[in-house]
């Protein structure tokens, strides 16, 4: 009897996990299938689990006829790389300072940082500050600077660095090392796991961001990839209007797979994430475990 109960419970757990995992995977498969389907099939039969006839037309159109997607890709890569490097540096430096017991006013700065989590001015004042006072409209740095300093990451770094023994500093100082040297030569190498975790969170945040583009960038040519995806999805004619009007291209334009292109842009957008995901997943898990509850 007991034995049967146990196995029933196990069967239920395996089945539930499998079903839910497939539920999570399903939309990805549908979109990949949509991007590979022939436009005529999609229009006739609708989206499905598998393409009836495989066609790479949507991807061809995307990369050969519209350099806007390539351009948006370049913007997203630039933003992600610079944002991650500077964000990591700024939050790590702050976290390190706050982790030092000898710093007398660290509590004041900690409270100053904590308050930014608790109280937010909201969308309207933020928008006005960015546009009117900081003049960020339509500038590339508008996609980077607002996210650079982040209280959560500062506290995460601080908590990690608190575990590095202070004696290490003392002995380095006796050997004549300056604070900056200690930070770059001793502390940073010891913080590699935390740096990887926070760095990946920052990078994911920048890659997936569209909020800054939505709020601060009006010029479609300067939008990052995520916003470009939104523009393509909400405005079917967008890609078509981007193409030059040579006769050869015009012929293609008329048979452009609008539905397929929408799906293809999303695949292109999540491509790098899916590709890197298996390798970086564990860093995110670690980061969520230490950072989810505690600041």
């Amino acid at each position, binding site marked *: 009897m007991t034995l049967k109960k146990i196995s029933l419970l196990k069967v239920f757990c395996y089945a539930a996990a*499998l079903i839910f995992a497939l539920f*999570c995977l399903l939309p990805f498969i549908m979109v990949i299938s949509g991007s590979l389907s022939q436009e005529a099939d999609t229009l006739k039969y609708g989206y499905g689990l598998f393409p009836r006839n495989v066609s790479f037309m949507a991807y061809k159109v995307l990369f050969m006829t519209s350099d806007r997607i390539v351009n948006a890709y370049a913007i997203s890569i630039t933003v992600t790389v610079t944002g991650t490097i500077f964000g990591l540096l700024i939050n790590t430096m702050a976290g390190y300072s706050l982790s030092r017991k000898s710093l007398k006013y660290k509590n004041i700065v900690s409270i100053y940082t904590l308050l930014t989590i608790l109280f937010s001015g909201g969308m309207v004042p933020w928008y006005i*500050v960015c546009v009117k006072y900081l003049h960020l409209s339509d500038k590339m740095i508008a996609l980077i*600077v607002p996210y650079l300093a982040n209280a959560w990451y*500062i506290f995460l770094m601080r908590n990690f660095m608190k575990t590095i023994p202070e004696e290490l500093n003392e002995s380095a100082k006796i050997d004549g090392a300056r604070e900056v040297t200690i930070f770059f030569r001793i502390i940073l190498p010891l913080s590699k796991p935390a740096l990887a975790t926070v760095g990946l969170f920052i990078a994911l945040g920048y890659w*997936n961001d569209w909020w800054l583009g939505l709020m601060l960038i009006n010029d479609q040519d300067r939008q990052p990839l995520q916003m470009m995806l939104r523009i393509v999805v909400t405005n079917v004619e967008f890609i078509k209007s981007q193409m030059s009007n040579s006769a050869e291209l015009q012929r293609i334009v008329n048979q452009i797979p609008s539905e397929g292109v929408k799906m293809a842009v999303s695949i292109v957008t999540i491509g790098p994430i899916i590709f890197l995901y298996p390798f970086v*997943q564990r860093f995110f898990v670690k980061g969520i475990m230490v950072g989810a509850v505690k600041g």
Partner: protein
Amino acid sequence: MQNNLSRNRGVAVASTGLLGVLKELYVNKALYMMLVPAVVLLFLFCYMPLFGLVLAFKEFNFEMGIFHSPWTKPVFNNFLFLFGSEYGIRAIRNTVLLNALFISVGLVFEVGFALIFNEINSKIFKKITQTLTFLPYFVSWIVVGVFTYNILTSDHAALNNFLSVLGLPKIDFITNASIWPIILVLINRWKLTGYGTIVYLATLSGIDSSYYEAAEIDGASRWQQIRFISLPLLRPTVIVLTLLAIGRIFNADFGMFFSVVGDAATLYSTTDVIDTFVYRSLRVSSDIGMASAAGFVQSVLSFVLVVLSNMAARKADKDSALF
């Protein structure tokens, strides 16, 4: 005489105070310099908008800016408009109700799947299923918007095709507002369940295995072990995470509503939340007064709730509160 003395002492104290500050700043100048970029950036993007909260009481004029724009007459005029409009009230109501729905369903799913994953012995099976459930966390809401388009809302949507293959009537998702709370819950669970289970799984794996061994010797079934060991030990984590989520109940996940619902006005009766309402007032209808009043209400309520929920969380478990 005595007066003089005390005045002198006062000066002495003040100067050592100021000197003390300067000395501390000088001695640790490198460390303070390392704080400067973060402090400045937080000031620009978190503290400066706080001053902008006064806009809720002003008639905003872009040229005059936050400080020089005139006050409204009466001073709470923007709020009269906000609370006089059924849309403002509706947005606040939808935000709280939908978030309450997300929190409660989320709790069941996250604790449930943490327990389920914990029961799986096969390492490969566990790894694969967990990896797949965590995957949606990594895509942006815009991409989720495309997924929704593909499956639900487009003219060629997959779900309706599936229904018609089964001989069932199609559902018009774009006009059927009453069905959207369920859809939004499903999307919310699809995206965040894997993420949410991680903390609970960590708590579960931290439970001393001798509890389970002792229970097994006493003849407890696996189900009884879950019921009387795992669940009670998860309780503190559950309470703290739920309290912190309740603290954010006035803040809707703007990305989800913006990209999944978008500007389908037919759905606003059940899906328009404070954040989307503020966004539209700000960027679409340019009604800054209304937008800043709604934002002000949201900021203040959130602050109070976050502080309260944190106090409660600290009472439940001293180490897991935010502050």
